[in-house]
Structure formats: C-alpha cells, structure tokens
C-alpha cells in the first residue's frame, strides 16, 4: 500500500512539473486545449446530424454515442496527459533515447512514461467529462461509475500503448504501425458497438481492444451491471500487466544510441 502511494506521489510530482513546463507557453497550451475541445465537438455535431435523421441505430441513440465518446476522450486525455511518453515509446526505443531514463535510481517504466505531457490531452479530458455531464445528465451514482470507467480506460490505454510501443524492441521501426494501431483503436472506440459482429467483434476484444475501452463501460453504465464493471477493471489491469511484461522483456534487447542527453 505504501508503495502504491509512493507511485501516486511520483505521478503527482511529474504532473506538476510537466504542467509548469507547458504553462511557460501559456498561449500555446490553452490554444491547444481549446482546439481539441472544438475538434471533438465537431464530431458530436456529426453525430447529432446523424441521429436527428436516424434517431435509433440498433438500439443506440445519441446519448449512447456521447457515453462512448466521453469515456474514450476522458480516458485518452488522462492517459496521454499523465503518461505522454507512452505513445512516444517507439520513437524513444528506435533512436536509442532510453539511456537518460535508465540512469534513474527507481523503476524505469514509470519514470519514462510519466516524463512527458501532451497539451491537447487536457482538451480531451475536459471534453469527455463535460459532454457526459451536459448531455447525459447522470445521477450521482452514474457519474461516479463514469469516473471509474474513465480511470479503467486510462489504465488500459497506458498498458496498450506500452505493449504496442514495445514492438520497437523486437522489430525495429514500429513508429508507423503503432500509430495506425492507436488510431484504429480510438476510431473503433467512438462508434456504436452494435455495428460490429463476428470476427471483427472478436478483434475488438483482443488486438484492438475497443470493447474494453468504451463498449463495456457504456453497457455497464446503461445497465448498472456489476459483472461488466468487474470485467472492465480486470481487463484494464491485465492490459497494464501485459504492457509491463512486454516492455521489460524487450528492454533486454535494447541498444544504446550513445547520445548525450540530460534531463532537468
């Protein structure tokens, strides 16, 4: 338990440090946050036009799409806001830039992933929570359940990004493939689950785990299902474990880039 709080303190310190560094360029930071909120809002306009014309799609309505968007955006925002280096992992490995992180006296992976923040992430996170509260208007129980699911999505996404990013240790240049993989996951996560059947559905609960990112949380929120909630939490922890395992397995194959690098 003590160890867990230690890690939380570490995450808090990195968050404060990264935020301060971004706020040195206040204009750029806030313009990126606002642009991301506007960007996501444009998607909601698309869905509102769609559902105005076709009110229900296989039992899904506008509020269901808002829910998957809310969970995905908030989860993605928190994941890349807190652990921005998780998506930069392929580049760091490819260029041999892990050396500076290897010198830290504590476990490598947490320091590495926490070391960077993406400004637009906060736009995603704010958008996710705001649209859920404004459009779905949940009661307190559903709001807390929603917050829980944004956290499971955050954990799952961090694990997933580390897992696919670790491919770079094994196949060399994995920048492009991991980027497409990430885009595919986020894209699938923001469309109604009922569109997909058969083999594709299987894919969405394995290689592209959109099912665990947003479909199960949306269903659990709708039905207040304890079973689905537990499955979602379990899936997030398994993905995090897989990410850790893949990273440390791959690290044995890491070759230094012999770069001089200093972290303040």
């Amino acid at each position, binding site marked *: 338990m003590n160890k867990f709080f230690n890690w939380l303190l570490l995450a808090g310190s990195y968050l404060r440090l990264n935020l301060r560094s971004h706020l040195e*360029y206040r*204009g*750029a930071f806030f*313009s*990126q946050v*606002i*642009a*991301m909120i*506007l*960007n996501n809002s*444009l*998607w909601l*306009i*698309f869905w509102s*036009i*769609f559902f*105005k*014309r*076709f009110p*229900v*799609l*296989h039992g899904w309505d506008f509020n269901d799409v808002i829910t998957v968007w809310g969970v995905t955006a908030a989860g993605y925002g928190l994941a890349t806001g807190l652990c921005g280096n998780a998506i930069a992992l392929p580049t760091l490995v490819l260029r041999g830039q892990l050396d500076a992180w290897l010198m830290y006296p504590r476990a490598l992976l947490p320091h590495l992933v926490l070391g960077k923040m993406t400004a*637009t992430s906060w736009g995603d996170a704010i958008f996710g929570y705001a649209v859920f509260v404004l459009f779905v208007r949940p009661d307190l129980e559903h709001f807390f359940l929603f917050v829980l699911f944004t956290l499971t999505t955050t954990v799952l996404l961090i694990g997933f990004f580390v897992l696919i990013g670790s491919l770079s240790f094994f196949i060399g*240049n994995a920048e*492009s*493939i991991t*980027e*497409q993989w990430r*885009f*595919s996951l986020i*894209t*699938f996560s923001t*469309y*109604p689950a*009922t*569109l*997909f059947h058969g083999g*594709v559905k299987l894919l969405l609960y394995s290689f592209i785990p959109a099912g665990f990112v947003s479909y199960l949380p949306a269903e659990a929120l709708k039905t207040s299902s304890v079973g689905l909630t537990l499955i979602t939490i379990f899936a997030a922890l398994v993905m995090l474990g897989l990410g850790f395992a893949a990273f440390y397995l791959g690290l044995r194959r890491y070759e230094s880039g012999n770069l001089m690098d200093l972290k303040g």
Partner: protein
Amino acid sequence: MNSLRKYAWIAFTAARSNLAYLGEVSSRLIFLTVILYIFLRLWQDTYDYSGTGKLGDFSLNQMLWYLTVTEAILLSGPKVSQLIDEDVRTGSFATHLVRPMSYPLYRLAMCLGERVVRFISNMFAGCLVTSVLVGPSSLQWSGFWFLLLALPLAFVLDFLGNFLVGLGAFWIEDTSGLLLIYSRGTMLIGGVLLPLELYPTSVQPLLKILPFANIAYAPARLFVNPTLTDLLLVLSRQLFGVALLGSAVYLVYRVAQRRVFINGG
C-alpha cells in the same frame, strides 16, 4: 517557362522522394481500410434501418464510393502548415527568402508532388477495399474523368487553406490548434464524413459554396454522380475559392514578410 519547369521539377522530386517511403504508405492504408470498414457497417445498418434504397440521392453503393474518394482525398494531405510553422520557428524561413524562387510556390509544388503519390496509393487501396466490401461500383467512366478534372483545384484550395494556417506561426506560438480546427472543418462542413445532402436543407446552399465543400465533397460527388452541368459549377466554385483564398494568402504573406528579422553575418 523556365520558372514553371523549376517548380515542376520540385514537384517531381517531392513525388519521387515520397515513393521511397513505401512502409509509411502501406501503414496509412491500414487506417484507410479500418475507416472504410466502419463506414460500410454504419451505412449498411442505416440503409437497412431507414428501409429505403436511397439517402440524399445516394444508393449504398454510391455512398461507399463517395466516402472512398473523400477519405482518399483527406488522407492524402501532406504536412503543409506544420512545415511552414517549423520554418518560421527555426528561422529557416529566412533562408528560403534568399533562394531564387517564391516560397509559397515552392511549398505548393512540394505539396502537389507529394499529394499526387499519396492520393493514387490511397485511391488504389480504397478501390480494392470498397470493391471487396460492396462489390464493383456502378459508376460511369465519365465520373472518373470528371474527378481527375476537379482534383487539381481541390488540392490547390486545400494547400491555400493549410498555408494560411501555417502563416499563423508569425503571430501565435503554436499553430497545431488552428490546424486541428481547419482539418475538422474540412471533414465536417466539407462533407468528408457524410454528403452535404444529408445536412438540414436550410444550411446546404451555404455549405456548398464554401471552399471546404470544393475540396472533398464536390470532386467525390462528381465521381459517383457525374453531370457536365455539375462539373462546370464545381470548377467555377473552385476557381472562385482559389481566387479568394489566394488573395488572402497574398495579403497575409506580405504582412508576415515584414515581421522577418534577419541578423547575422
């Protein structure tokens, strides 16, 4: 003439260098396949649900081919504004000014050369995926030729929009936010995600004359529903858009140039 050949050569070099990155090209096609598959499922269910063979004058087959073209256009867009942003931020913009060529035309040539290669590869993969998903298109050959006629000005229009966003770097610290809004504007009010015919009737006339609509919507619509009248209308709207955005680029670029300070020896 000599000057034209210079820019044509830049475009050719950009196209050839883009061809060298086949890995990047093929991974982009994965995303295109995912998007087309999702759209297919979305629209298949929507057509089933609505119980009609046509939505906004589009059959399911036409809708999928329409979206194939709009996505191929959208995903073929090279990084224009990011490069300008970088040139301004790093100061390499100043070194471009002493070269015996116009900076905007240099960027335009680079953009067109790169975009042609990316569009052809996207279209090739898109046609393959869509043919497998909904069968061969019921399209006419004239649609293909009309698309080819509408594409050059569509690419120029998109370039001008991106160039304007990139010039924003002279005034603001980071243009990525502006770019995000511009690209989503192209997607939403430019008809990339759904044809403008499915928008509320009251906003359709306005959306159709905006430059955004003439980048993806108009060429894609000509592809699935080609008529000579529409072709002439699209070309005239594109020319108007190029004149409008071109003037804006000219004015902003002139003001921006005054903000360049060159020091050193």
